[in-house]
C-alpha cells in the first residue's frame, strides 16, 4: 500500500479509537483529580484547571465543526466565529434571565445593562429566554438559520474559494459591529456577564463546574461520533468528492449545493453548541467573539492538528490553546512570537499537521 493509503487507513481507525480512549480517560481522571484527590496534593487538579480543560473541549467541538466543512468539504469558512458566538449569546441570554432580581438594580425582568441605560422594557427578542428549553433550541436554531440563509444564497450562486471565505468573513465582521452597538440590546461591548445560576445550580459551585465539564466532554464525544458517522457514510464520500472535483460530482448527478448547504448548517449548529457550552464556563460572552481573527484561529487549530481528520482537529484545538495559556503565563511579553512562529513552522513543515507527523513517524518505525 502507498503512503497515502496507509495514512488513510491509520487515520480512520487508530485515530478515532485513540481519541475515544483519551476522552474517556480525561472524563474519568479530571473529576478524580479534582474531587477525590485532596487540596494541596501535587496531583490535585483545581477547579480552575477543570474549567480550562472544559474550555479547550468546547473549542475542540468548534474545531470539529470547522474541520467538517473545511477539511472534508473544502469550504474555508472564516465565519464560524459568528455561529459560535450566536450559540454563546443564546446561552448567555438564558443565563442573564436566570439572574432575575439578583441583578444590582434588583429588576426582575431586565438585565442590569438595560436598566442603567434606562430601557423601558425587555425587547421582544429577549422573550422566552427565561426557559432553558427555548434557549437550548435557539442555540441550534440561531446559527443554523443564519447558516441556512447565507449558505443558500452563496452555494446556489456557486460562490467558491476565496470569494466564499471573504464573504463569510464579511458576515461575522458585520455581526461584530452590530453586536457592539448598544441599541442592539445585547449589552454592547460589555456583552453578557456576571451569571449566577444554570438550571438552578450555582455556577460557582465546583459541582456545577464539574457537571458542565462532563457535559462538554459528552458533547465533544457525540460531536466526534456524529462527524465520524457523516464522514464515513456515502454522504461523507460525496462531500469529499465535492472537495476534490466539484464539477465532476455534478456530472454524475449530485446536487452539490444541497450537500454543501446541509453540511454547512450542521457545522454551524455544532459551532453553536460549542459556544453554548463555552459561555457558562468562561462566564462572559461579548462581541469580541465575533472577531474574524477568531475564525482564522480556529482554522489554524485545525491545520495544526491535521485537516481532514476529526481527531486531528481536536488535537489542534487543544494543543494551540494550551500553548496559548502556557505562553501567556511563562513569557507574557513575547508569547506572540512563539505562537506566530508555531503557525509558520507547522504550515511550512507539517502540511498534514501533527497527525501527518505521527503517521510519518509510525511508517518510519514500520519500515525499520
Amino acid at each position: 500500500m502507498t503512503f497515502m493509503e496507509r495514512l488513510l487507513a491509520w487515520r480512520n481507525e487508530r485515530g478515532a479509537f485513540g481519541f475515544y480512549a483519551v476522552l474517556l480517560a480525561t472524563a474519568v481522571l479530571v473529576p478524580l483529580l479534582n474531587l477525590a484527590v485532596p487540596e494541596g496534593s501535587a496531583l490535585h487538579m483545581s477547579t480552575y484547571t477543570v474549567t480550562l480543560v472544559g474550555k479547550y473541549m468546547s473549542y475542540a467541538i468548534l474545531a470539529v465543526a470547522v474541520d467538517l466543512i473545511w477539511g472534508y468539504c473544502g469550504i474555508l469558512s472564516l465565519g464560524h466565529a459568528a455561529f459560535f458566538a450566536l450559540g454563546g449569546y443564546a446561552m448567555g441570554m438564558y443565563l442573564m434571565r436566570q439572574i432575575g432580581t439578583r441583578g444590582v438594580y434588583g429588576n426582575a425582568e431586565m438585565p442590569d445593562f438595560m436598566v442603567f441605560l434606562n430601557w423601558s422594557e425587555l425587547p421582544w427578542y429577549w422573550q422566552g429566554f427565561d426557559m432553558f428549553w427555548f434557549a437550548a433550541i435557539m442555540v441550534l436554531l440561531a446559527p443554523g438559520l443564519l447558516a441556512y440563509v447565507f449558505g443558500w444564497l452563496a452555494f446556489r450562486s456557486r460562490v467558491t474559494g476565496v470569494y466564499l471565505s471573504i464573504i463569510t468573513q464579511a458576515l461575522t465582521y458585520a455581526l461584530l459591529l452590530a453586536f457592539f452597538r448598544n441599541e442592539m440590546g445585547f449589552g454592547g461591548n460589555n456583552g453578557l456577564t456576571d451569571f449566577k445560576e444554570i438550571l438552578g445550580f450555582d455556577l460557582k459551585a465546583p459541582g456545577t463546574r464539574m457537571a458542565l465539564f462532563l457535559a462538554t466532554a459528552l458533547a465533544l464525544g457525540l460531536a466526534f461520533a456524529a462527524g465520524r458517522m457523516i464522514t464515513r457514510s456515502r454522504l461523507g464520500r460525496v462531500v469529499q468528492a465535492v472537495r476534490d472535483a466539484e464539477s465532476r460530482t455534478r456530472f454524475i448527478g449530485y446536487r452539490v449545493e444541497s450537500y454543501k448547504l446541509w453540511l454547512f448548517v450542521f457545522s454551524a449548529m455544532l459551532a453553536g453548541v460549542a459556544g453554548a457550552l463555552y459561555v457558562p464556563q468562561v462566564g462572559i460572552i461579548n462581541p469580541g467573539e465575533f472577531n474574524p481573527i477568531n475564525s482564522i484561529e480556529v482554522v489554524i487549530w485545525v491545520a495544526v492538528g491535521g485537516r481532514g481528520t476529526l481527531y486531528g482537529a481536536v488535537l489542534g484545538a487543544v494543543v494551540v490553546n494550551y500553548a496559548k495559556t502556557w505562553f501567556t503565563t511563562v513569557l507574557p511579553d513575547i508569547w506572540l512570537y512563539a505562537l506566530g512562529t508555531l503557525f509558520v513552522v507547522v504550515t511550512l513543515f507539517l502540511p498534514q499537521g501533527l497527525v501527518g507527523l505521527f503517521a510519518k513517524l509510525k511508517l518510519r518505525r514500520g519500515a525499520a
Partner: protein
Amino acid sequence: MLWLGGAAAWAQAPAGNEFDTAVASLPTASYMEKEVLAGQIARSGHPQAQALLQGWLDGKLHADASGHVWLEGEGGYVDPASGSAGKVEADDLEKIGTNNRLRKALKGVLAQFALASPAASARIQAVREMRRELDESAVAALQARLPQETEAAVKHEIELALALAGLQAGEPAQRLAAIASLDGDRSAEVYNRLSQMASGDEADADAAVRNAAGAAVRSIESWRSFYQGVETLFFGLSLGSVLVLAAIGLAITFGVMGVINMAHGELIMLGAYTAYVMQLLLPNHIGLALLLSIPAAFIVSGLVGVAIERGIVRHLYGRPLETLLATFGLSLVLQQLVRSVFSPLNRSVQTPGFLSGSLQFNDLLSVTWIRLYIVLFMLIVFAALWLTLNKTSLGLKVRAVSQNRRMATAMGIATSRVDAMTFGLGSGIAGIAGVALSQLTNVGPNLGQAYIIDSFMVVVFGGVGNLWGTLIGGMALGVTNKLLEPWAGAVMAKILVLVFIILFIQRRKQGLFPQKGRAAEGH
C-alpha cells in the same frame, strides 16, 4: 499678594493710569477679570498696549514673586510699560496664563490694533476676526476706520461687517438696507443673525424685515444643502482613496499571485513606522522627511515582502489557504516585533504645514488639504502601478507568470525571481500606503489590523486580479459608506456596506470586474 501688586503699581505710575493698574493686577486676576483688564489695557491707548497684549497672547507675559509683570522679548525680560530691561531669572517667574475664552478676547482687541496695520491682508484678517464678536467697541473701531480706509477690498469687508452690525439697527429701513447689502454673504454669522430675525422668539418686529430676512435665509439654505452634497461626495471619495491605497498592494499579492497575505496590514504598518523613523532622522525638515519616507517605506516593506516570499510563500504556491495560515502567524510576529522595538505606545508623526488646514472655496465649502492630497497621491500610486504592470518588461513577466506559470517557465522567464519581485512590489505599495495613513491615523502596532479586512473586501468586491476593479471597488465602497452615514450612522453604514458586499458577491461571484478565463478559479 494683591496688595503687593497694587503697591508696585502705585510706586511707578500716577494714580488713575488705567494701563499700569490693569497690568499690575494681572498676576492675581481670575480669567474673567483678566478679560476686563485686557479691554482696559486696549482702551488705555498706551503705546506699549499692543505689544503687551500680543506678548500675553503668545504666552510671553510673566510675573515675578513680587507681582511685578515682565514681558519676554528677544533680548530678555522687559518692563511692559517702560520697555526697560530688568534683571529677573526665568525660573522665579510665573507665566500669566490664558484660556480659550481669554485668547479669543485678546485676538478680538488685537484685531482692533491690526486695523491700522499697513498690510491690507492683515487689515482684512482683522475685520474678519472682529466680525466674530461685534461689540460696540468693535463697531466703533470699524466705523472710525471706514473713512480712512483706502483699499477697496478692505472697505468692502468693513462694510459687510458694519452691515452685519446694522442688522441690529433701530430703524426697519436701516435693517432692510443691511439685509440687502449682505446679499451674497453666506457666512455663519450672517445666517444665524438672519434666521433669528426671520422667525422664532427673537424674530424681527417689522414684517417686511422678517420676510426679507426669511428670503435671504432660504437662499443661503439652498446653497448650504448643495455644498453639503458636494462635501459628502468628497468625503466619500477621500475615504475611498484610503481604502484603495490600503488594498492596492493586496491587489497585487492576492489578486495577481493568489497569495492570501494576512500580513499585508503589518506591511502597511511598517511603512507608517518608516515615516516615523524618517522624522526622527530629520527632526527639522518634517515635510522633506515625509517625502523621503515614501521611497524609504517602499524599500523597507518591499524588502520585507521579498523576504516573506522567499522564506515562506515560495514553499506554499498552489496552497493559498496555507499561505493564509502562515502569513497570519507572521502578522502576529510582526506586531509583537514593533511592540518590542517601538514600544506598544502609538508614535507621533508630525503633519507638515502644507498638509494641514483646509482649502476654503467659499463660506460654505472647504476641503481639507490632507484629504485632497491623499486622493491625488492615491491616483499617482495607482497610475504608477498600472504603468509598471502594463508598460514594463517586469509587468509583462508578472502577467505572463500569473496567467500561465508553466508556459512562462518554458519561455525562459525566471518565474521564481518574478514571484519575489511581484510580491516585493505589492508589499512596497503597502508600505507607501502606510506613509499616507501615518498622516491620518495612529501609528501603532494595531494599525495593520484595522485595515486588513477592509482591504480584502475591496479587492474581492472589485474582482480579484484586476487593478481597475480595486480602484472602482474602493471608491464605490467609500462613497456608499459616506452617503449612508448621515442617516444610518457610522456603524450602521459600515454594516450595510458589508451586507451589500455579501449580496453583491451572490450576484457576481467574481466581483465587479471578473477575471477572464480559467485563471479566475483562484483556489
